[in-house]
């Protein structure tokens, strides 16, 4: 049909570039990500897909953009319902913002259902809305303890005996006596990997179901007092750089004076790629301590959920490919082998031919097999939600609260009360 408006567009059409259809009949899928390694991962997955499905070839065009840039563009594209890529990586912290447009995303619940029994549910929940799963997780990001086995043995401590935070504290006291310049661990001041774990172990979160910040709680006071006691006993310092995953933090660990690093499982790749040789064959991966037996040993932290745009080129094919790449056993094998992440599909966790191969760089780096730390706690992995109020809460915690209580020594109750007020006043 002739349109008047089209006349105005003639000029822009002349200036525009004609799109060329793919020659081999492969379906062209576009994808955005903000992590360069993911680009490589998906391009390789597409090759495997084409080998496995010669009748339905795809051609994936992955673009890596900056973190803010990509998420902002995606939000705008979803809002306009135009220009969004077929497949897109979304960072956990940004997921609530993208879920606001869930009507424009493909519900992956059905596609994931064949694997549901093996998937870590906690990981799917954070990418869910109204019981429907919209994001395909990349990894669990389970919190684990990296223990310097030799250093602890010098103090006569067997890392396997550390079951509770009290055991951990006692081990630290013994370590300090045996090796005075060593530290049992670190106290984070710019983020809350450990604090989130300790909160989740007590069954609470940073916010309630109505998205009210819950900071001034006895549970959080317990978390702070526990870590304060580590500082007071002199078994820990506040972490240089604010947390282990910074240049300073990693340099600190590389000095071989830190007996335990409590971080998500993906911190393994920081050991192999960045901390390097000085810590090789020293650390062993083990479950985290708990306050009391029976509490959750771990929570998943950090991560990326991949979404499918419902009005894209071929959403069904894109979804099928996504499941193939990130959820099905053969796909997640690559997640472990290439990226060193703990895949969400636990079906392969027990498969020694995948997880315990000796030519794997992670298995070579650590004492024993890292996956052994996760297998026993498979069903005890919880989660901390990322919601629209999270940025405000995290911001206050990372800049002010931890510094007040751990560096300046402000009274816990006083600091928590101030924190609750400040965060509430910032949630306008």
């Amino acid at each position, binding site marked *: 049909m002739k349109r008047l408006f089209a006349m105005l567009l003639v000029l822009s059409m002349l200036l525009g570039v004609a799109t060329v259809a793919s020659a081999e009949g492969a379906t062209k899928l576009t994808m955005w990500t903000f992590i360069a390694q993911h680009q490589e991962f998906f391009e390789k997955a597409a090759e495997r897909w084409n080998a496995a499905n010669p009748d339905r070839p795809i051609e994936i065009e992955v673009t890596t953009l900056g973190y803010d840039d990509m998420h902002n563009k995606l939000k705008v594209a979803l809002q306009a319902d135009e220009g969004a890529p077929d497949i897109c990586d979304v960072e956990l912290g940004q997921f609530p913002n993208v879920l606001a447009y869930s009507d424009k995303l493909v519900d992956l619940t059905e596609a994931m259902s064949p694997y549901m029994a093996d998937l870590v549910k906690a990981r799917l929940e954070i990418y869910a809305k109204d019981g429907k799963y919209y994001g395909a997780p990349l990894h669990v990001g389970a919190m684990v303890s990296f223990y310097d086995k030799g250093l602890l043995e010098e103090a006569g401590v067997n890392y396997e005996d550390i079951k509770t935070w009290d055991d951990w504290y006692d081990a630290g006291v013994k370590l300090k006596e045996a090796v005075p310049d060593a530290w049992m661990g670190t106290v984070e001041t710019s983020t809350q990997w450990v604090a989130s774990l300790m909160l989740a172990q007590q069954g609470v979160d940073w916010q309630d179901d109505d998205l009210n910040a819950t900071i001034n709680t006895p549970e959080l006071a317990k978390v702070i007092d526990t870590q304060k006691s580590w500082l007071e006993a002199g078994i820990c310092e506040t972490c240089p750089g*604010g947390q282990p995953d910074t240049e300073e933090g990693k340099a600190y660990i590389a000095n071989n004076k830190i007996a335990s690093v409590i971080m998500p499982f993906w911190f393994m790749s920081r050991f192999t790629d960045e901390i390097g040789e000085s810590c090789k064959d020293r650390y062993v991966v083990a479950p985290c301590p708990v306050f009391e037996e029976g509490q959750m040993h771990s929570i998943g932290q950090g991560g990326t959920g991949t979404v499918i745009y419902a009005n894209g080129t071929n959403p069904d094919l894109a979804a099928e490919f996504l499941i193939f790449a990130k959820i099905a056993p053969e796909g997640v094998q690559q997640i472990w082998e290439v990226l060193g992440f703990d895949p969400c599909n636990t079906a392969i966790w027990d498969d020694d031919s995948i997880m315990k191969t000796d030519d794997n760089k992670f298995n070579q780096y650590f004492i024993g097999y890292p996956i052994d730390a996760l297998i026993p706690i498979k069903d005890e992995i919880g989660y901390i939600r990322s919601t629209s109020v999270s940025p405000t809460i995290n911001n206050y915690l990372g800049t002010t609260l931890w510094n007040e209580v751990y560096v300046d020594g402000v009274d816990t109750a006083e600091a928590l009360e101030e924190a609750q007020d400040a965060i509430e006043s910032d949630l306008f």
Partner: protein
Amino acid sequence: MQAVKRKKKGRRALFLLIIGVLVLVLGIAALVSLQGKALRYDAAYDEHGDLSAFFFDQLEEGQSYSALQNLWLTIARQRLWITLAGLAMIVIYVALNRELLYDTKIAPFVFIAPFVITFLLFFTYPLINTILMSFQKVTGAGNEWIGLENYKNLFGNKNFHTAVKNSLIYMVLTCAILIPIPMLLAYMTESKLTKMGGVFKSVAYVPVLCSVVVAGIIFRMMFSELDGAMMNEVRGLFGMEPIAWLKSASGSMFAMVLLCFWRWTGMNMLYYMAGLKAIPSELYEAADLDGCNSWQKFTKISLPLLKPTAIYVLTISIYAGLSMFTESYMIFGGNNSPKNYGLTIVGYLYRYGFEQVDRFGFASAVGLVLLVGAMIITVLQLWATGVIGKKED
């Protein structure tokens, strides 16, 4: 006589210019609105099918879409003619007053016209929209007018006070350092007594070429709290204990100011050297004859004659100090610093505008407050230094 006559003629034709500009603006506006008209026609056609019912005053019964197209084209042509007529009137005005082409008062405006037009096109709209958004709650779902709510929240927010305080302290410190020291260094490198002045100039200028991102990361490592970090090693030389530089207010500010000093000294030296070169050498020769020493020459000749340069440096330093963001972002490895020691006004704006959801309206208010604040300080400064407001003798 001639001048008066020319002036009269120019004034006579002035109405042509005014009407020409008005017609031109009208024509452009009409052309732009064609798009809306096209969309409305299309929508009407979609809704009614038969257009004669809808456009009964313009179309005869039974006429179809192609008639509508013709109508639209006719209107478009008319509007194009109006625009061209406006343009023609302006051209005629210029042709009647050909001396305008050589007018030294008008020429500058013609030369800056490309920039001004670009500026008006791409900056005025965002600026106006920022003002509007600062009174709105801007969400993905649409904007909602909330009056002064954003400003009320802003001025009551503790972090905003911290940000303003940090930015002001940083601005004052950088101005206090980056005005006298580069001036002295420029004078020294320009002095005939200095050997290899070119080497010093280059050395001082190299940091300017260095990316602030690279510099910021290196400063972060220098000011690390690890015992082996450079600044802690320096403390060690004096027998002092290592400290956590970036976890204290003064240490953080010191790192940021030092980075600024390191980076911009060379640039400011360059401005001053240009200023020094513009001072006639006769003045110095005369001073030599009168038996002045170097210090007297500096204070009595160089310093007063460098005042315009110093005012320029001060003006850009004030603006740069108030709008600092990248340095702090890189030194602290992100927008969050311990107890917000490194939070600046722009960092505060970034936090709400980009790191949080649906706070664009609030961030707009922050931006406007920064704009107004910077403008007041700059105008006061220019007034105090005599650039504006005071009549020349």
